[in-house]
């Protein structure tokens, strides 16, 4: 059962790289308490899921890298190859030169249609390499232009091309006090569109991860690399062959049939032991956890409400709208997106 990862934009590619790193190290790492045989089957399952063994000596990540500017992908490819433990397929990437300018409309309405064929061809190639395709995992931020806009478009294309496959979108929620001024617009547009094509949205908030780095891990000068490694750790714990519900979901479905517990939350108490904890099946706990996660929908309600509120505030003054209409996203499209998200908010509130 294999998963094809689509890394979109700077954030998507930076995180994707850390995820494959984390998975690879886990596979290579010690197997803690479980038996050698179990470890082997764990390793095989994991490798199969995320890597393909081609003629090369190292496993090749099942991934497609997409960005509208070249620097991040070029770095990501070379750092991965330098590790000596795994690499990306040299041909599985697509980039342009100009970037998306943090403009969702540019990513969705211009880059999307323009590069649809090439990108989907790359995805198709990766999908064909899989014996059994489990589904797609896309990584993107909501705040920028490529991950968010082009990401939403690509997700739609994935849904159209693979109607029965499972699509999981990993979405990065930006810092509340801003990384991008129009991040709330971009977020609203992204989420409303993803709702239509995605099966599940797995969310990580930069603010929360930042706190984890500061308070739980005591890192003094926190870099994006630190943040990304934490996220990758969490994702790795979710994706390993012991696997079930995700954190802070809107609605969930399981990627695989097996139900073995990843203990998402306790892994944060002992980051060094995290890998060991993954391997211990704790079916009982798992059910409790998933029950509390699903009903604990208030989790993302507040951030979602905040984003919509700020975006609406900005929209009421018409600020920055001309930047979007320039590329074909009109006020009506904004209104549709707001409506869609208000519906989500009210459905969660009623719960």
């Amino acid at each position, binding site marked *: 059962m294999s998963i094809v990862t689509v890394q979109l934009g700077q954030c998507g590619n930076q995180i994707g790289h850390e995820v494959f790193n984390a998975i690879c190290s886990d596979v290579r790492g010690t197997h803690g308490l479980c038996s050698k045989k179990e470890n082997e089957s764990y390793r095989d399952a994991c490798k199969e899921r995320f890597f393909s063994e081609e003629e090369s000596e190292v496993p090749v990540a099942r991934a497609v890298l997409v960005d509208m500017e070249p620097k991040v992908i070029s770095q990501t490819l070379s750092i991965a190859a330098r590790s000596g433990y795994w690499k990306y397929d040299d041909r599985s990437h697509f980039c342009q030169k100009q970037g998306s300018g943090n403009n969702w409309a540019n990513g969705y309405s211009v880059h999307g249609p323009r590069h649809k064929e090439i990108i989907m061809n790359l995805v198709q190639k990766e999908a064909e390499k899989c014996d059994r395709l489990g589904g797609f995992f896309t990584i993107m931020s909501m705040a920028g232009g490529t991950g968010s806009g082009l990401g939403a478009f690509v997700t739609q294309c994935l849904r159209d091309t693979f109607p029965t496959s499972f699509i999981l979108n990993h979405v990065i929620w930006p810092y509340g006090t801003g990384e991008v001024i129009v991040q709330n617009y971009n977020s609203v547009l992204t989420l409303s569109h993803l709702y239509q094509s995605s099966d599940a949205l797995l969310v990580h908030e930069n603010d929360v991860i*930042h706190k984890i780095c500061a308070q739980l891990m005591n890192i003094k000068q926190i*870099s994006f690399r630190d943040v990304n490694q934490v996220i990758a750790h969490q994702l790795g714990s979710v994706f390993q062959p012991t696997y079930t519900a995700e954190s802070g979901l809107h609605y969930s479905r399981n990627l695989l049939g097996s139900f073995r517990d990843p203990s998402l939350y306790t892994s944060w108490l002992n980051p060094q032991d995290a890998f060991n904890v993954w391997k211990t099946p704790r079916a009982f706990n798992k059910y409790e956890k998933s029950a509390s996660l699903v009903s604990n929908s208030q989790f993302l309600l507040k951030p979602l409400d905040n984003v*919509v*509120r700020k975006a609406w505030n*900005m929209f009421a003054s018409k600020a920055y709208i001309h930047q979007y209409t320039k590329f074909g996203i009109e006020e009506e499209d904004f209104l549709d997106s707001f409506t869609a998200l208000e519906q989500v908010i009210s459905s969660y509130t009623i719960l």
Partner: protein
Amino acid sequence: HLVSFQKGIYDEALSSFFRNVDTRSGDDGPDIYKGKICSLKARALLIDMEEGVVNEILQGPLRDLFDGKQLITDVSGSGNNWAVGHKLYGCQYRESIVEKLRKTAEHCDCLQCFFIIHSMGGGTGSGLGTFVLNLLEDEFPEVYRFVTSVYPSGEDDVITSPYNSVLAMKELNEHADCVLPIENESLFDIVNKIHQMINSGKLGSTVKQNSMVTSSAGSAKTVQEKPFDAMNNIVANLLLTLTSSARFEGSLNMDLNEISMNLVPFPRLHYLVSSLTPLYTLADVNVPSRRLDQMFSDAFSRDHQLIQADPKHSLYLACALLVRGNVQVSDLRRNIERLKPSLHFVSWNQEGWKTGLCSVPPVGHSHSLLALANNTCVKPTFIELKDRFMKLYKKKAHLHHYLHVDGMEQSCFSEAVSSLSDLIDEYDELDATKGGLRTDPSRLKIAV
């Protein structure tokens, strides 16, 4: 940067500003896209209606960087007359300018942005410069137009500088994507401040070599210092830092189109006040976070701005911070949290910060910061400009020099001042209402 780090390899960063020409077959040789540097040629067009300055460049230490064919010069100058620059020379040189622009553009893999660098107070930079701005919009509509404009000060010795500036402002309002106004007074003050600090001996350790924002000591060839050199170096540093994240890697890239996207909420409000810190670096290598934090504080202080303005006491529509060097996201966040309470942001953009992290610092520095503010503090500059204009215009002083020129009419003046007035009104409106509604606008109600 090239000299200090790159060991002569032509890379992506260099290629943003230079072509690499194989000059073995003469100056017209083909471009080399990768590998060793043969001969760098600036992707630039030098335009002046008198020859003195351009000739100096072509005879100076940087002469090899400029392609002899990318020049447009004349002999008599524009007489500090916007109309002569814009209407007369514009018309005369239009074809030649377009042709040379096309040629330069063809050498680019992916042309993203034009930088127009000029002054507002004279005739050529102001008049012909804004003519070229128009031209760029017509010929290359998809390419961004960033304009660095030097505004005249109150005691400018060019009497007609208010006319020239206001006439040029209309063009900037309508055709520029972003304008970075610069005032000589501010540059001058910064230069003096640096000299004072160094000479006063107040600094415990010495200033790190090559680190002054005014010095060209870090540049590829030694350049003889002339009076404006130090001031101009500041502007050069501004443009370098502005493009650093597009040229070099970092954990949070910030490209030029992102600057335009995030800092321009309404098309005409595209005037960005810039500040650079630090002005110099002390020689000790350790950078305690206190000094890092000081760098952030300085970026918001009045005496680091490149125009005579005080953004802290006016209204922010948007703000961008681009940090270079070993600075991480937590440093950025900490300082934003710290400084936010003392800054006034418009109601619909209370937390509106655009941030970028570029790993590569400028030569001689361990880190540096560029702050770009879309802030109503530009208003006084524009109001003063308008006042000086009106003083002359009411008396119809010197008007005949302009109206003499073919294509120039009184309406050009009235339209220009009206355009400036409208702009000032927009800033006034924002200041008065702080950007809007007292309470949050009511949200959409969903029928359950």
